[in-house]
């Protein structure tokens, strides 16, 4: 399918995704350290006082901790399914990234690239459900339920947002969508679709206000029973997924690698980092959206809005 891609492309993709995922983790840690550190001259001075900079090391220490941690097994857990789920999350995140252009061309330039992205990202449903189910424990199961409910709510608006971008370009190929934005970014003339995409991006990476499936109120939800390397893989998968959905916003709505002076790959990275930072910030700055309310929002606001946007674009393009 398509002409041969250079060998370095998949490696570059993996490297870029890992770097972005790690950046998301570090930024999140720093943000969570901020409010405590914002008061200089605290009365109690301790050698262990933490500032935002020392918090930046947290993800690395956490990874080290999980690497050497014992694996815990719950009684009657379906360990096979948990493993499939945990690894699946990582795999779908990377696969979804395959159609995204790094600079000017993606690893696999599929004719139905937008559909590919969507299909892979739906794979996260399966991954999360398996992880939540397999542990044979209440909170992960509830987390799994929540993600399915979330999926039902975000998937349709998400599809409409993707279709809007594809319709604007008249093609399902990601490269064509980028090319169609030479004049004007889609984010500018289809702002509703872009906003809907951002909301659904948070929902599919269960991040920020959409973190219900791994929410603190159900003891960490899907990941409540994960420990050791399993937990590390799950966390890595979640961060990669976030990185991928942030990266996809760039070719779909922000003109891809287009920009003055700098080379395309640098523009792509800059734009991706900006979207990623926005998504990560929402994790500290917004409360969690409850599923019944999000369902309502999705069906009564997001879907009609996305459809109206689709109609507008269809009229303009047609």
């Amino acid at each position, binding site marked *: 399918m398509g002409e041969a891609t250079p060998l370095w492309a998949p490696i570059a993709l993996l490297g870029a995704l890992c770097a972005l995922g790690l950046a998301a983790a570090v930024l999140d840690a720093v943000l*969570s350290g*901020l*409010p*405590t*550190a914002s*008061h200089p001259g605290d*009365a*109690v001075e*301790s050698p*262990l006082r*933490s*500032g935002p900079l*020392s*918090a930046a*090391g*947290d993800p*690395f*220490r*956490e990874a*080290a*901790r999980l690497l*050497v*941690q*014992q694996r*815990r*097994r*719950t*009684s*009657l857990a379906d360990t096979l399914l948990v493993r499939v789920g945990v690894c699946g999350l990582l795999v779908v995140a990377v696969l979804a990234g395959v159609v995204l252009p790094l600079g000017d061309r993606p690893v696999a330039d599929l004719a139905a690239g937008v559909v590919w992205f969507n299909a892979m990202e739906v794979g996260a449903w399966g991954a999360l459900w398996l992880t939540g189910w397999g542990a*044979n*424990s*209440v*909170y992960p*199961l*509830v987390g799994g339920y*929540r993600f399915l409910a979330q999926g039902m709510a975000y998937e349709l608006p998400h599809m409409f947002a993707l279709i809007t971008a594809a319709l604007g370009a008249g093609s399902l190929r990601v490269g064509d969508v980028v090319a169609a934005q030479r004049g004007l970014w889609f984010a500018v003339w289809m702002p509703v679709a872009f906003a809907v995409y951002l909301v659904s991006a948070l929902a599919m990476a269960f991040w920020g206000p959409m*973190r*219900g499936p791994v*929410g*603190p*109120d*159900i*003891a*960490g939800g899907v*990941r*409540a*029973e*994960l*420990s*050791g390397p399993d*937990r590390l893989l799950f966390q890595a998968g979640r961060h990669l997924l976030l990185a991928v959905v942030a990266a996809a916003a760039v070719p779909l709505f922000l003109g891809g690698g287009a920009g003055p002076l700098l080379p395309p790959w640098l523009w792509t990275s800059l734009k991706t980092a900006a979207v990623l930072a926005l998504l990560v910030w929402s*994790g*500290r700055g*917004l*409360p*969690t*959206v*409850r*599923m019944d*309310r999000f369902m309502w929002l999705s069906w009564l606001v997001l879907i009609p809005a996305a459809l109206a946007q689709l109609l507008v674009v269809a009229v303009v393009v047609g």
Partner: protein
Amino acid sequence: MGLSAWLTRYAAARPRPLVVTAPHATRLRLLAEAELARRGWRGARSPAGADLLVVCGTPAAALSRAVEVVWTDVPAPRTLVELRGDPRPELVTTALDGAVDRLADVRSQRLDAAGRAGARDGRHGPAQPYDEHDGEHDDGEHHAEHGRHGEQGGQEHHGGHGGQHDQHSEHGGHGRHGEQGGQEHHGGHGGQHDRHGGHGHHMGNPGGVPMAERGRDRDGLTLDRLHVPLGPVLSDWPAGLVVETVLQGDVIQQARVEVAGGLGTERFWDAPWLAALEGRRVTRGEAARRGAASRLDSVGRLLAVAGWGGAATEARRLRDRLLWERRDEGVPEEFAGFARRVRRSWLLHWMLRGLGTPGLSPGRSRPGRDGVAARLDAWLDETGRALNALDDGSPLDDDAGPRGPVGDRPSEALLSALPGLLTGTELAAARLVVAGLDPDLDQVRPAREASHA
């Protein structure tokens, strides 16, 4: 030394603590939380995610059993810190420093892990599927399994813990396992077998774990029910509270409140008012400080449960400054900014709307005075007022504590209102309702405690 030893030591500098608080240990909890925040250690949500278990205060029987279960659920490397006795900041600092040292002690951590792996293999063996089920098993291992569950007296009377534990996770289940009225009170080994007497298919209850029973639900389908205790070991949860729930899906069908008590009598939040009632001299300023901190604690907990981490940290930060650092300059202004942001968050108010108002279906809003959103508003108002009275030197002569008149022990009323408010809510809403009431279990008389001890 190998790579894993290096990793262990590297990771030890940033443990993930899980804090368990017994009633009457609020002061210790606050000291511990302040110190953890100062060190930037992010709390764990579940035992599996933790490597440091911090127990504040002295748990009584039921709670200490729950702590034991949670401790066995924490994967190695792990360490336990028990804070009790004289609540001084130095005590907490030294104890946490010690925890870091123990976590970095590669040799003893390895011994711990090896010992536990062995013990687990002996105890939990891989669950053998078996399809004959008539109450008698030749297999000794299964007898052992049954015995283990039996000793715990069935789910309903279990000494409540986070619900993260295997015994509570029997989902699924099917309709034909006899008429299951009896699960609620079955005491042990025998009762579980009786329930399964009549079913006609070749399905055992795997590993001796009883299957879920069924009951009517709000959609008119009789689906599986789970008995899940919420608490007492749960993050951002009132210390010592256990809500025994019957869940269908994630909807609470029934709720019963129990208290897993702690030793001691201290009522930290009420202390200034109690002292004034005893005739000691307490200034209004001192009481206002305690009251403001108490409400900020409640606000922080509610925001944390609502998932707004940034704002929750801010509230707790203000609380710690009031209580421990006592440098008040700038606090009222900072609080005013914080309160404005919380009040303005339409997302938060949309999530809280209609919660905790009895008699109204969730989702339908009413500008009532008793819902979670209204309580949050009131907490913010009261905190603002109290912050203006920090310097009031006149003697305290009322008994209007942070949760109402301290002599009436208002939290007891909150606890009795809780089951009615929780029935019919989803878990997410239920957590917000509990955090919105935020009962202080230090106020609860020992007579109410641990009927299931």
